[in-house]
């Protein structure tokens, strides 16, 4: 570089405020998310999240397919919660079509959904630690997640995307071998959960990075439409499984963890993280109860590959690992939906980024995004 251009360049470096680009390829943005960050030295003044890099036209495609064929597309929205994603869609279609789902199918749906919740939270735990520089919990979490993925592979054939909940029931029945695997997993999970807390949750460095960081007050959480652990971390004790039970959740007894500011302020990153940790244990309880009380009977109701739904519209929300996932299905009397709109929790949770990342340090932005726990497949659909 010549002297003239060096001088020009040096003059052009405005050192008051820098506009920094994080992503879309970035180790810590949990997918293809682009954050434009305006910084003044180390302090972040504003952020502009840019999404849409993973937009795969799910809603448009769903308008051209029969209802049953839409389910694999729902799997791929939040690809870490594939046992949970089709549930609200199936429930909406079943509501519009008047289909009754056998009890055994409901229980199986619950077992798989809760196991998937544990798997998803394990990954959230691992990647959050990775973002903050602790490389080891990621691999410990994956050790347990591997057990879950093997169970899912046995029951559905897939490790990440399952196509398991179907309209009218589930795809396959559970065998005693799979039930034994699940019980073995529960024993292991209960054994290692305290280890995770010793390694990460109570670690002073981790606490200092997450407590009192990214505090989302209760009113702000509700106003911005946060759901799931983000909402519960801010102190709102609302869980769809308790408030409006579906799939037989009213039969199970479990607690709903709520953030209390145990390490700092209610609604900080640590609270959201801790809600996920405790939810893992609560999910273990639900799986155990469901497994013990699994009723006999058919595991699906034959509805046919292609069926017409009468005119009507339904919105059914379910409690996904990341929040409230809901499908708004508009039927027009044909075998294809007029409109399928997905309310993705990650999309709705991400909108709070700009409001929270004001006057924080650059390193805190990563902590905050990690605590919101987004999956870009769901944000962009």
């Amino acid at each position, binding site marked *: 570089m010549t002297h003239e251009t060096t001088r020009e360049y040096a003059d052009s470096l405005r050192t008051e405020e820098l506009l*920094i680009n*994080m992503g879309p390829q970035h180790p810590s943005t949990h997918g293809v998310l682009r954050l434009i960050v305006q910084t003044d030295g180390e302090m972040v003044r504003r952020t502009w999240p840019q999404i849409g890099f993973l937009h795969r036209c799910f809603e448009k495609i769903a308008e051209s397919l029969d209802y049953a064929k839409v389910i694999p597309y729902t799997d791929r929205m939040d690809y870490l919660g594939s046992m949970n994603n089709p549930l609200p869609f199936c429930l909406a279609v079943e509501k519009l079509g008047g289909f009754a789902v056998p009890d055994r199918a409901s229980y199986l749906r619950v077992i798989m959904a809760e196991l998937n919740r544990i798997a998803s939270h394990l990954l959230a735990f691992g990647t959050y630690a990775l973002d*903050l*520089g602790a490389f080891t919990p990621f691999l*410990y979490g994956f*050790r347990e997640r591997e057990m879950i993925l093997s169970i899912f592979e046995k029951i559905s054939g897939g490790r990440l995307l399952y196509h398991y909940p179907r309209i009218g029931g589930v795809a396959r029945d559970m065998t005693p071998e799979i039930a034994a695997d699940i019980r073995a997993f529960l024993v292991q999970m209960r054994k290692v959960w305290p280890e995770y807390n010793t390694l990460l949750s109570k670690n002073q460095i981790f606490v200092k*990075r997450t407590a009192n960081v990214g505090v989302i007050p209760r009113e702000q959480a509700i106003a911005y439409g946060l759901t799931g652990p983000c909402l519960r971390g801010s102190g709102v004790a609302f869980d769809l499984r308790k408030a409006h039970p579906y799939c037989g959740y009213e039969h199970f007894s479990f607690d709903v963890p709520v953030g209390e500011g145990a390490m700092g302020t209610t609604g900080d990153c640590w609270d959201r993280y801790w809600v996920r940790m405790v939810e893992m244990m609560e999910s273990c309880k639900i799986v155990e109860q469901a497994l013990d009380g699994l009723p006999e009977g058919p595991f699906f109701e034959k509805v046919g590959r292609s069926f017409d739904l009468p005119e009507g519209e339904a919105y059914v929300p379910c409690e996904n690992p990341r929040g409230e996932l809901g499908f708004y299905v508009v039927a027009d009397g044909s075998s294809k939906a007029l409109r399928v709109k997905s309310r993705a929790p990650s999309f709705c949770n991400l909108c709070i980024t700009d409001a929270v990342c004001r006057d924080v340090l*650059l*390193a805190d932005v*990563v902590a905050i995004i990690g605590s919101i726990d987004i999956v870009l497949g769901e944000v962009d659909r």
Partner: protein
Amino acid sequence: MNDVIQTFHESGAGALFPPLLHVPSWLPFVLAYLVGGGIIVAFMAIMALVWTYGERRIAGFIQVRLGPNRVGPLGILQPLADAIKLLAKEDIMPSAANWSLFTAAPILVFLGAMLPFAVLPFSERIVLTNMQLGLYFVLAFQAIEVIGILMAGWGPGSKWSLYGGMRLAAQMLSYEIPMGLCVLVVIFLAGSLNLGEIVAWQSQGPWILGWAIFRSPAAFVAFFMFYIAGLAGTKRAPFDLPEAESELVAGYHTEYSGLRFAFFFMSEYAAMYVVCALAAILFLGGWHGPIPRPALPENAAFFNAWLDAIHAQAGGGLSVAASLEVFAATLAGTAFSRLGLTIAAYEIVGVINMFLKAFGLYFVMIWVRWTLPRIRIDQVMYLCLKVLLPIGLVCATWAAIQVVVFP
């Protein structure tokens, strides 16, 4: 001096040395620089290679997985493969880079990591130069790394490098203060800046009780502080925010590839060793360690007299030639005399002790890295200036008072 040389000849140990004793006086000096420097650089490079393998293996075991195990038996050739890979990479320079700074940065960082090896002893007599100001030399030249980092931050002309470089320079400079205070504790207690004398002072108690950490509570606290400050100064986790930066981008060495990156990489591992070795020497008794050393025979007194005579001839201070002659004599002596063999055993056990401690501390550094999360930069500075600095001052004052009250 002549009667010493005569006795030396008569003892038979001088059989090999007539040529050496007749050469011009500057020749051993030059040889010392070439050979000694070469040995030190070779040791540093080999050690860096070995420890990259060690780190990855240990990391694998901590993380419930195997480390490298494909390249060579048990993956031992992995560092060689990494080295070849780095050397074969294209040398990229960003178009906005300032050439001189960009090129000078890895060199300065490497120098800052390598120069302390000149005074770092591996054993009582195995040292390149036994400087009277050895400790001061180490601390001073560690600071050259900071200049290199600043250059690495500005040189590539990238915002990310600038951020990383600034943070890192702030961190390294700040942590030199508590490090200096901890070192001051030992200087007060031992009464010397010469690393050999500091270790000799620690050999005064029974077995390991002569170590500095057992001689004063100030030294005990200072040891842990020194270790933490050393972790921060070598930008190791949990203080690796400016460097690892998986949160943002790779920080100050984003734009470096190939051999330039290899320089940064190697100097990090070398600097780690310097900190661990320094901690072992200053606080854990250096080569005077858990394994007791064989007693020197009577004519060791003669050997020490010869050593002193050479020191006196060189005028004290830098005694490069003298050290090398001693080193060579020790080596040669192993083949030819019982005295030489005993001294060699004495030194080798010392080296083993030294490595036990330094590598033990090195292992702890790796252990800590793979266990703890990263500390945020403002918390890093808080720790330094509001926690370590006051404790360091208290320790230094305590040590000073202790020396006056209990001489």
